């Protein structure tokens, strides 16, 4: 999956983003009730336009280097678009499992954009086996392409419990007279591989 960039940002929006990045790098966690970089994160959509908003937000997060508390704050007080950017930025921002509650929150939603972002490289690295299996199953349920699941082949390989869950789901679909999603067979193929 190609990542969105800010390379082709128009002039005024580029100037705004450069300023926002400088502010974020300079004073990450200060200034009044709401830090400046948090305001910039919130308004990035209208400043940079929908096509560039996510990439701009990811760059602001990278510049601000928020600690776990600040990151959780901007996630839980963010719009769906802001949460999406936080989830995408996680692998580069948080080395350990501290941000797992954010991923788990996103996995509880039914917003397919958040689900797709939640099963990225950070989840592949830190989500426990039970949580990861349910995340994969939820992708199949909600129509999120499993291409969004990072390290799918590696994590699924030889996972007998995942294979059982997939076969049960396929049986349930068949019993209801419904098609089994093509993606299910793909994941099952990985799960049936020898370790």
């Amino acid at each position, binding site marked *: 999956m190609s990542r969105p960039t800010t390379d082709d940002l128009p002039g005024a929006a580029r100037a705004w983003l450069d300023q926002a990045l400088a502010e974020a790098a300079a004073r990450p966690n200060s200034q009044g*009730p*709401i830090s400046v970089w948090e*305001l910039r994160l*919130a*308004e*990035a*959509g*209208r400043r940079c336009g*929908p*096509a560039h*908003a996510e990439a701009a937000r990811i760059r602001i997060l990278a510049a601000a280097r928020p600690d776990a508390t600040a990151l959780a704050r901007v996630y839980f*007080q963010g*719009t*769906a*678009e*802001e*949460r999406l950017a936080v989830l995408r930025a996680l692998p580069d921002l948080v080395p350990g499992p501290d941000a797992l509650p954010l991923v788990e929150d996103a996995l509880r*939603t*039914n*917003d*397919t*954009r958040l*689900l*797709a972002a939640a099963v990225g490289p950070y989840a592949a690295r830190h989500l426990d086996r039970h949580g990861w299996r349910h995340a994969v199953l*939820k992708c*199949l*349920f*909600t*129509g*999120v*392409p499993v291409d*969004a699941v990072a390290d799918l082949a590696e994590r699924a390989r030889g996972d007998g419990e995942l294979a059982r869950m997939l076969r049960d789901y396929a049986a349930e*679909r068949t019993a*209801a007279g*419904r098609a089994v999603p093509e993606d299910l067979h793909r994941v099952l193929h990985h799960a049936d591989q020898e370790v």
Partner: protein
Amino acid sequence: MRIFDPHIHMTSRTTDDYEAMRAAGVRAVVEPAFWLGQPRTAPATFRDYFDSLLGWEPFRAAQYGIAHHCTIALNPKEANDPRCLPVLDELPRWLVKDRVVAVGEIGYDAMTPAEDKALAAQLQLAADHGLPALVHTPHRDKLAGLRRTLDAVRESALGTERVLLDHLNETTVEEAKDSGCWLGFSVYPDTKMDEARMVALLKAYGPERVLVNSAADWGRSDPLKTRKVGDLMLAEGFSEDDVDRVLWRNPVEFYGMSGRLVLDVAATAPTHEGNSVLRGGE
């Protein structure tokens, strides 16, 4: 016919409504923050409500090709409850967000001193955040309520050209129009306005600065009232251009003052083919 419903509480509506609205021509909606039919008791429940107006609800709307924006405020009814009042201090965090296109609904319910304070504070917040304001006029004692509302607006930092007065009717339209504010009319099955009275008012006062909404919510209401007004306008001799002005261009111009309207749903729709409102497995 392209339709922008400038006031509808989609949180209370079903996916059937979204489907019917799309089929009727609705391409954009604004959902004002308001009362939920049952009093809330803590700021935390407002936070969750605001989050759903900026998360789940626009996602749901996008599934049906409808652009969803919202207005954020402490509504007048709950401004009277000291347990809810602290929400006022938290509003700035939401008022900076993308997709928030006005402060609202604010205004009067029972015209109490607490409502005076909340209205003045929130008109100021609108001015501070470069947002217009959606101000509803009270259900009871409406004309007196309109006059007190206009006093509050004139004392505020917000110009009347950045204020939309809603729930207007025959008794309040003239003074509202003279004030320079935008004019909102809610068309309901029983109360407020109906289609025929709405079209009569359009004939008498013209389509300038007029917005028509369904204000559909959890009560008896109809999310297709905007379309029904458009149809009756055409039947009564208004041009397609008049209809487009009232049902699309006027709301776009009013909420566009926020600089935050994104009407191209394709640009904001999920990257992936989302069917999660179907609960999966369908």
